[in-house]
């Protein structure tokens, strides 16, 4: 399945992901700038912050337990569409999902 990342400068990167992969993993494994994922997906660092595209927020769903606490410490502005990309697991309904990246993660 596909994920489209749109960087803060508007540049787009389209990557392949497997079912069960997190959006963070897909970004890191495809060398997408703008996602760090320093803790490897352990919900320890808030360096994989992303904004879910308006058309996808319902399919992706809301923040998990503890996620908003980490987002409080994110480097860029936190919005209603903010998620930690390590907590978004790819599944069939998310094929084609569009993810916007913040200006900074640190």
């Amino acid at each position: 399945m596909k994920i489209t990342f749109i960087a803060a400068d508007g540049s787009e990167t389209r990557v392949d992901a497997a079912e069960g992969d997190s959006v963070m993993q897909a970004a890191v494994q495809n060398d997408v700038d703008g996602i760090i994922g320093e803790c490897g997906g352990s919900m320890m660092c808030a360096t994989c912050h992303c904004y879910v595209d308006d058309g996808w927020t319902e399919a992706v769903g809301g923040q998990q337990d503890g996620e908003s606490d980490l987002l409080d410490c994110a480097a860029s502005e936190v919005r209603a569409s903010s998620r930690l990309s390590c907590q978004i697991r790819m599944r069939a309904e998310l094929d084609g999902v569009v993810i916007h990246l913040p200006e900074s993660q640190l």
Partner: protein
Amino acid sequence: MQRIVIIGTGQGGQQMAASLRQEGFQGEILMLGEEPGLPYQRPPLSKAYMANGNAAALLLKPASFYERSAIVLRDGVRATAIDRAAREVVTGDGARHPYDHLVIATGARNAPPPIPGLDAPGVVELRSLADAERIRRRLAATRHAVVVGGGFIGLEFAAMARAAGVAVTVVEAAPRLMSRALSPEMADWFLTLHREMGSQVLLDAPVAGVLAGADGRASGVVLADGREVSGDLVLMATGVRPNSELAEAAGLACANGILVDATLATADPAISALGDVAAFPGPLGRPLRLESVQAAVDHARHIARRLVGGASAPYAAVPWFWSDQGKAKLQIAGLLTGADRTVVLPQPEAAPVVLLFRGGHLAAVETVNAAGIHMAARRMIGCPLAQLEAHGFDLRAAMKAAA
């Protein structure tokens, strides 16, 4: 500065190379690593990787990152000497690699106790991906695992093995679990947790030797008091020792790690050290060596800013650690060394929040499954006790009031 060489391709070495580019370094970067393959994350080896076996998911960056960033990675190569006079690193293949600056990021290796029988088949350790692969292959056929050492790695493995249906006995030489890293109050909570998960936990139980069956394979361990614990897999998880021999042979001062100053530089201005192998000035005035992803990564960023931007600020990042044991995510902010006062905040039907103070200031905070409190704690380390007391030790409230 034209050419920076990094010895070590762990998370610290990888971050060093990446941070140099982020800071705008345009010269050559050479990474030398003894392990084969691209740099990968170690923390999941005792947890997620054991469950899913997905090695590709461990990679810190894909191969394309190193090409795109013009970082030359030489894996499977052992650095054998540092020639400080010539400013060259010598590798096992006889090649000499000149540097203008050298960063030593050689990490640490396991340090099993000197007991007989460690070479028996069935005795394993867990540090590298190769170790984890070996254990993973054996786990399906393992009925009873003996875990020697009740620290983070041993307990993470124990929880994972229990979840996989393996019987587990943990033997720990100290009177409590995770004794170097954790308060007695939190260690008690984890002792109960592991017993509830079905692990047998023996404290005050130093190991005297590994037992072998008629086929020569490990069949358990014998304790110093003569008790025998049987098992068909023996994991030695008894702590680590820094890989500082290379630095020591090159004449750099070492004492439980390579001694560096507050900017993470050695006495040789052309050499820095980071991560598990570096002993840097700690809060009590003694050299401090941390075994954590956070230290490796933050050290690397600090050195990169110094080398590229000329920054000379002392390193001052707040340490943090985590450990996933079954459903419990333990998080620690700060350092509990030298703590002289403990405040325990019991939580209904959950682990307590433990605040440790040193000289009237917040030194460390331990939480389980409480990300919000942990994140607040990282910002509040150093805060006066009275200020927290005024908020009933509610770290989030104190943080908001201070903001």
